């Protein structure tokens, strides 16, 4: 049995031996990536398609370069796309060995140029799951279970393209699929609010962020804003990720840009199309646009603020405006 990331037994003993105290975990992004992400690691990419994707963290990994990563996610858009694009441009600097995933695309903006490029050229191993399968795998990991039953997608080829098994329910005798826990080495998660200890408050759909944080050996959280600890604990029912599941807290406004962050900014369609055009021309054999994109937006700016600084203010203003206007209409506040 292959356990990419940690096996259930390793995941337990790693956590048992870890310092779980309530301490200040603020770090710079570069420092956090440097401290926790190593060659050969399995990374859990949180968010969902292009929403609350850990784009800033992924850009920093690209800047630092890593080799032979495994990426585990249910549905990703931008975060997988950026990493794959870095590999496409220079495999000696950055590479991915394996994907465990259910969906990789950019929804409205089209199918993934980089999934096509890497897979159709046989450059990576793929393991196919459904969204529920991957969510349930992270959930099993978060719950401390080696496996969890999941009734889908039974009868499909998906279950033939992965490590799930079919067992007979010990009580009903009916067949049911069981999926193995997924314990990434490092979870990358972007949230709206965190305190300095790592308690996180997510607004809007939670996706599978809490489960991924709890399942992983280390968790790097980027957040739109740090909030006071006392403000956080005033409404404990709203805390979705507890501090002891988090190792680094990085305050990074626009950390999910050009994707969407509920309550803060909408998709930047202009920028996403710019990126996707560059990728698609790469897939069709023309490298230059993608080389330029990575230079201009990721490698030369050195950090997230530098990247955001390259984006016209009018675009940033617009995506904040439409997201917040919707919210004020909705909430009357």
């Amino acid at each position: 049995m292959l356990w990419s990331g940690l096996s259930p037994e390793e995941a337990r003993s790693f956590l048992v031996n870890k310092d779980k105290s309530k301490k200040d975990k603020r770090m710079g992004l570069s420092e956090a990536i440097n401290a926790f992400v190593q060659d050969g690691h399995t990374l859990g990419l949180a968010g969902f398609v292009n929403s609350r994707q850990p784009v800033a963290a992924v850009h920093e990994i690209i800047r630092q370069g890593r080799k032979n990563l495994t990426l585990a996610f249910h549905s990703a858009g931008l975060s997988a796309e950026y990493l794959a694009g870095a590999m496409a441009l220079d495999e000696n600097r950055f590479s991915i060995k394996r994907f465990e995933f259910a969906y990789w695309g950019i929804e409205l903006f089209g199918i993934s140029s980089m999934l096509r490029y890497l897979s159709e050229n046989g450059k990576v191993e793929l393991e196919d799951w459904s969204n529920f399968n991957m969510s349930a795998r992270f959930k099993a990991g978060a719950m401390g279970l080696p496996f969890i039953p999941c009734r889908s997608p039974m009868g499909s080829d998906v279950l033939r393209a992965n490590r799930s098994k079919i067992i007979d329910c010990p009580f009903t005798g009916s067949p049911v699929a069981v999926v193995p826990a997924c314990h990434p080495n490092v979870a990358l998660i972007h949230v709206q609010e965190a305190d300095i200890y790592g308690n996180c408050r997510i607004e809007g759909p939670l996706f599978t962020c809490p489960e991924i944080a709890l399942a992983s050996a280390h968790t790097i959280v980027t957040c739109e804003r740090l909030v006071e600890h006392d403000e956080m604990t005033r409404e404990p029912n709203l805390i979705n990720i507890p501090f002891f599941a988090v190792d680094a807290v990085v305050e990074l406004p626009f950390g999910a840009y050009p994707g969407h962050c509920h309550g803060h900014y909408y998709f930047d369609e202009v920028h996403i199309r710019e990126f996707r055009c560059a990728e698609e021309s790469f897939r069709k054999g023309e490298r230059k646009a993608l080389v330029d994109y990575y230079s201009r937006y990721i490698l030369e700016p050195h950090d997230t603020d530098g990247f955001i600084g390259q984006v016209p203010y009018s675009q940033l203003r617009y995506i904040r405006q439409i997201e917040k206007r919707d919210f004020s209409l909705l909430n009357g506040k």
Partner: protein
Amino acid sequence: MSNEFAVQFTPQEMIVVAGARTLENNKVVFAGTGLPMVAITLAQLTHAPGIIPVFEAGAVGSLLTRGLPLSVGCSRTTSKAMYLQGLNSAFELAQRGYCDYGFIGGAEIDMYGNLNSTMIGAFPEGYQKPALRLPGSGGASDMASSCERTIIIMVHEKRRFTEKLNYLTSPGYLDGSSGARQRAGLVGQGPYRVITTRAVLGFDEETRRMKLLATLPGETVSSVQENTGFELLVDPNVREFEPPTQEEIRLIREEIDPHGYFIKRKA
């Protein structure tokens, strides 16, 4: 005027109207991205204001009145939501039996309503290096597994309506044998309707084979069959589906998708 039929409309507009009309009021509908979201919005604005949408990213029971969501994870899916958790929670609701319909698409379909949205190429031997790689299952296979019934929305082309899928992503009636879904461990009853750019189809109760129920405007039984890569059963009462009304088209163009994100103005 507004209940009069529209004269000009695109195949995408027709498919959305057909999809919306298929939805019953007050039912729980687990919606995939794209056309299903547009069809649910149209249904909520017309005959089915009580539809309860479920989005896999976490939102349940939303009113899609805050602008068309561009993604099932987008904040617009959360408008007036009555439950807002995450993927596990949404799929567990379906697995438990809360979701009457799953509303999904695919790249290929076979006569038993099985769908492929993963790859074109040889499976399993060519899985690691497909001829064309598609985005993958996402939540579609989960909806097809556990929602009580499935409504499928498809572009109707011969290569997409195929005898043999390249890869079975979302289970329909599997091999079509009696009890095949139950034997496989699936809890939902399987495909209910296939809404296409040419027709509305169902499934024969005995054989679970796809059956033509209605042809869309401009199509005939034989034009639909010609564009289908397997033999269709034809309902004895096969009928012509009513065109969109002017009001339906107005809602799509002016209120639901004025920027043409999902419904392009040209076919």
